[in-house]
């Protein structure tokens, strides 16, 4: 998807294109276009339905709306954002997401710096622990963490989500940043320390600026992960309208008004707005993050 790789594939493509090739390539195009449609059509149908009047959604398939007379409306969005509380849910999601993204990255950067740039005896043990906890299923932590948060009186608050997402996000954050920081040439770090820079000075002026690509990829990942999360929010934050994020609200709608498709489709699209915006603007970073070892589900 980068320019370089696109050029490489263009070069590779050029090889087998004889005149006969054009006909033989028809099945290839059919499969690629067909599968692309399979991936696109469900979302397109969701979007079209969210713009149709309730009576039309209930009586005919969304594809019939593409023929004239075209009748589209924004009233479904007005309903879910207002009466069904998704406007508030959208806000709640943002309030959850920003600290839950900043905290693991900031704390993880400190830890990654120590692991990558400071030699010490316990390092292999710490790495082992972090890498081991990278794929621990959240389910194995739910009950004790729930009891802890309940003991602190935090269940049902934003803080519960911030703390839990920070804990759950840290192993991956440290792992990704460690890789980036370990690649910084040792001579640079040594030169800085000879010049009398403190650890904090080196961290802020040298290590952080050099880690910007990794930090950006990580920020996008963690933000998307928290925005799209259901389980953590469902258990530690719950469904109260003043705290519930948009995923919890939409899943509640899906379970309660199973037949009001015009509302459900609009609700699902509200929850997709931020991820889609990120996807279309920051796709390169997203792909880079995945390739750097995105092992989190």
């Amino acid at each position, binding site marked *: 998807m980068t320019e370089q790789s696109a050029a*490489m594939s263009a070069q*590779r493509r050029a090889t087998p294109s004889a005149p006969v090739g054009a006909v033989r390539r028809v099945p*290839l195009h059919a499969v*690629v276009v067909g*599968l*692309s449609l*399979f991936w*696109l059509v*469900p*979302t397109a*149908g*969701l979007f079209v339905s969210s713009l149709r009047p309730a009576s039309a959604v209930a009586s*005919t*398939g969304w594809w019939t709306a593409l023929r004239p007379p075209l009748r589209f409306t924004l009233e479904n969005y007005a309903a879910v954002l207002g009466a069904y509380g998704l406007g508030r849910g959208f806000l*709640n999601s943002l*309030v959850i997401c*920003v600290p839950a993204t900043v*905290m*693991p990255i900031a704390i993880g950067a*400190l830890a990654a710096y*120590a*692991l990558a740039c400071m030699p010490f005896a*316990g390092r*292999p043990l710490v790495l082992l622990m972090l*890498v*081991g906890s990278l*794929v*621990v*299923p959240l*389910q194995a932590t*739910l*009950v*004790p963490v*729930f009891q802890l948060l309940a003991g602190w009186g935090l269940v049902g608050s934003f*803080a519960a989500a911030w703390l*839990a997402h*920070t804990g759950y996000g840290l192993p991956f954050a440290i*792992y990704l940043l460690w890789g*980036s920081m370990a*690649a*910084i040439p040792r001579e640079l770090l040594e030169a800085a320390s000879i010049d009398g820079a403190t*650890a*904090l000075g080196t961290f802020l002026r040298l290590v952080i600026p050099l880690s910007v690509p990794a930090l950006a990829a990580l920020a996008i990942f963690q933000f*998307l992960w928290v925005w799209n*999360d259901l389980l953590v929010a*469902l*258990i530690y934050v719950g469904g109260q309208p003043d705290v519930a994020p948009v*995923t919890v609200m*939409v*899943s509640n709608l*899906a379970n309660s008004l199973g037949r009001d*498709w015009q509302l*459900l489709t609009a*609700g699902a699209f509200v929850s*997709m707005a931020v991820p*889609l915006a*990120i996807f279309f603007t920051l796709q390169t970073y997203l792909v880079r993050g*995945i390739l*750097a070892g995105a*092992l989190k589900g």
Partner: protein
Amino acid sequence: MSRAVVSALAGFVGVPALLAIYLVGIERLLRQVSIRRRRALQPWLWLAPALLFVAVFLIYPVGYTLVLSCLGPASRGFVGLANYRFALTNPGMILAFQNTLLWLVGFSALTVLCGLILALLTDRVAYGAAARTVLFLPQTISFVAAGVTWKFVYAFRPAGDPQIGLLNALLVGVGRTLNPVAWLVVPWVNTLALILVAVWVWTGFCVVVLLAALRAIPPDVIEAARVDGTSEWQLLRAVTLPLLGPTIGVVTTTLVIFALRAFDIIYVMTSGNFGTEVIASRMYKEMFTFQNFGRASAIATLLLAATSPAIAANVRRFRRPPEGES
């Protein structure tokens, strides 16, 4: 509303401020001690906040889950292995295990296959990048949104009524005599229908990772094989696939881990009804609906045990820093 504003301020301003104070504090502290002490102390002070979080939210909970799995519903009274006996013999649990197995095999195999085919094919057409953008799109949305999207595709109306779900409309429209299917109700069909949603979401990930590996194959290896007159199919089987082997392994591990803890899609689309329950959704039900923390912990422990080979593999593989980032 005011609560959200206060919380937001605390989160947006308070947390970075706390960290800044901590960093300046440890710098001050380290200036007071001898160089030898500083060398020994410094890494741990930089690590401390992270270790605290990981210990409190991952290490301790995993250990305590093991303890809880031998206690009663309200986390009191030792019950031995009774919770495990329940988890391994209850008919509902056995069904959940069967479904999870189906998820593991069906989902992983189908996703890797789709990813591989699409990585190979989109690399050969001029609009490959655009196609991959479309394929990757579901990866960015939540499973909740994906679940609603497909619940609508699977929507069922009795025969004779106009079908508003795409799949049943195709079925009734193309095969005139066919009856619409309640995709999310019929046993086994519904689990496969749910798996298909996960395949739809995860294929983009596979395509991206496999394509990167595909393009990392040196062009001269491919050229040499072509010069030798190898057919495209032989090339794929004898050269490309073996070279992609390690990457396919990594991708499959990721998918297996996801399949084990798949929860959102089931929760949103069927709530675990009609025999679609898997281990992860069953664990949620025991914990939240039945408030039986002992049984929930036993199920969670089994899930952890099933994941442990992947954890061990990770530890072996990742002793060194990841590549490709700088």
